[in-house]
């Protein structure tokens, strides 16, 4: 709708009708015309976390009969509750995707309790039985993609030193660091990964400093886990190092340095959810998957990746996609010498022990506190 062309009276009438209409309980089975709300904690075009979700939202806009409303830069405070209510009351949204981790508790739960007939989907894997039934969690095992990227990184590194710029030492980040390193070790068992924690999800100057520090140390392949990898990718490329990306495909930022990357595949998942929703099927409260379920994907390999690397990476990727490969298979020792996964133990992706990860595997230089 082009609001510039519509007269003000028309807008007034239309919005009034919408407000009245939204006051009635919306039955989602009727929703041939469904409105879906997306809420981002940062900018939609950050070349990272939020952009990945926005790409998923964009895929939904192409579906017939689906309207998408988006709001960005909503902080993880009661402001997001008001945003959700506003989307429900004023836009008639019936399915909401608050995409940032910190939106879940208490904000999304409160909203789910307040609007039991509507559906709320959260990216993060936090749902448990005591939470409302109309709320759900989904997440992707992106560490599988990082693992494959790590294989490529391991083969491509000439100095045997890798670097990782991370935001905070929380389990999801540690899992990525470890999976990447374990992948690299398949190529070179003596490889090391140096980790620098910047302290927060988006700190461009600190990320640039960290990248430069790592390269000063002789690191030649870098990856990161921050909200906007653009800074790390560009700074690494400018110093002549290689990168593997994260969240979305950043190859256009550094075409000669981008080896591959671990990406979300929300463009495939969200239409699946919406189809379930509009046809009346219940979306599972807890939905997670990796390469096999096509929730995450690996970027196309760059030209500078060797054939040997490609072959091994494809092999690992195929095994992961078939579901026959376990990344965290014992024996694994951490970088302080203790054994964290015993010999003979396989921690598959759904293993709750992995949710509490607090160690860095052997070969990673750095500390979690």
């Amino acid at each position, binding site marked *: 709708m082009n609001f510039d062309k519509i007269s003000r009276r028309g807008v007034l009438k239309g919005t009034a009708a919408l407000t009245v209409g939204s006051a009635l309980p919306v039955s989602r089975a009727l929703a041939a015309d469904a409105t879906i709300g997306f809420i981002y904690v940062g*900018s939609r*075009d*950050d*070349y990272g976390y939020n952009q990945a979700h926005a790409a998923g939202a964009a895929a939904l806009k192409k579906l017939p009969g689906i309207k998408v409303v988006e709001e960005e830069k909503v902080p993880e405070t009661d402001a997001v509750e008001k945003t959700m209510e506003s989307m429900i009351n004023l836009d008639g949204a019936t399915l909401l995707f608050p995409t940032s981790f910190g939106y879940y508790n208490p904000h999304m739960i409160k909203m789910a309790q307040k609007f039991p007939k509507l559906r709320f989907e959260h990216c993060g894997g936090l749902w448990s039985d005591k939470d409302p039934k109309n709320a759900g969690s989904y997440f992707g095992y992106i560490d599988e993609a990082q693992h494959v990227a790590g294989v490529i990184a391991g083969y491509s590194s000439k*100095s045997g030193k890798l670097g990782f710029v991370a935001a905070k030492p929380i389990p999801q980040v540690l899992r990525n660091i470890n999976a990447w390193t374990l992948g690299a070790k398949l190529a070179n068992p003596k490889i090391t990964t*140096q*980790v*620098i*924690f*910047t*302290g927060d999800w*988006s*700190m*461009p*100057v*600190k*990320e*640039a*400093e*960290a990248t*430069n*520090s*790592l*390269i*000063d*140390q*002789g690191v030649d392949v870098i990856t990161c886990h921050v909200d*906007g990898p*653009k*800074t790390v990718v*560009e*700074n690494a490329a*400018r*110093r002549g190092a290689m990168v593997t990306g994260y969240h979305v495909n950043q190859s*256009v*930022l550094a075409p000669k340095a981008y080896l591959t990357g671990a990406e979300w595949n929300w463009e495939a998942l969200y239409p699946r959810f919406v189809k379930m929703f509009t046809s009346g099927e219940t979306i599972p409260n807890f939905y997670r998957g990796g390469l096999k379920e096509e929730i995450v994907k690996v970027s196309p390999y760059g030209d500078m990746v060797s054939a040997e690397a490609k072959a091994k990476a494809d092999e690992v990727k195929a095994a992961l996609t078939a579901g026959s490969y376990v990344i965290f298979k014992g024996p694994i020792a951490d970088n302080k010498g203790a054994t964290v996964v015993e010999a003979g133990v396989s921690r598959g992706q759904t293993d709750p022990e992995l949710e509490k990860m607090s160690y860095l595997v052997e070969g990673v*230089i*750095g*500390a979690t*506190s």
Partner: protein
Amino acid sequence: MADPGNIGLWTVPLAVLGGAVRVSTPFLFVSLGECITERSGRINLGLEGTLVMGAMAGYGISYLTGSPWVGVLAAGVTGAGMGALHAGICGLPRVNDIAVGIALMLFGVGLAFYLGKPLIEPTAPRLPAIDLGWWSDIPQLRAALRINALFIIGVLLAPVLVWALRTTRWGLIIRTAGESSDAALAMGYSVNIIRLRATMFGGFLAGIGGSFLSLYYPGSWNEGLSSGQGITAVALVIFARWNPMLCLAASLLFGGAAALGPALQSVGYSHGYHLFNAAPYILTLLIMIATCSPKRTLIGAPAELSITR
């Protein structure tokens, strides 16, 4: 086999040196500009907004024209414009310049984010680096000595400003306006015009400092680019006693402190990294406490400066 890249703990001081050069440049330009503005008797707290506007304008113009140096110039002009706005409003009677500064900080940042939205994704041409360490085998030393022409300009600007303030006619006029507006009036100059020009100059330099952030280091435009650098640069001016050379020293010190955290982590020392991130601010506060005295709050301050009264 000796690994020329492995220099062990020497990484830390080298990284601090490199950081001092890299991170200090925006502080340098902003503080030198603010130095002149404050010498003329006005305090411009809005430089944070000017810095961010300069970063956005520089990046945008560089993208549109394909030349980063034109971007730098555009950033400077934008900064001068913000400075003119500040001076224009402060020139009205009964207006509090500290409040205006805070207002322009908010306005500048908001406007920059608004106009800069389409600039987050594209990649603009960057400023080139000059390799001063080509003689060395050690990659860390070479990296630390890769500097940007703007840094050199800034370093040369400091003594030039000292000389200009002390010996040229314009320097005298600015200092007079800062010490006593009556004396400037008696000399036949409009104090407002003097301060307007001084603030525009300060804004010009601050804009250039901002363009360094977006066009060189970290080298891209996004909304987290500045974390209070503008405001801390104003603090630097105070504890540099309004002396451009000390501004240079203080900027280097600050830049080095900001690089300390990641440098220590890269050699494996990562305890309490949050506190290291706060090191520059703690350092500034401690130095201010140490150098200010309760009797004459700010020795050497221009008498017309509102914060001293």
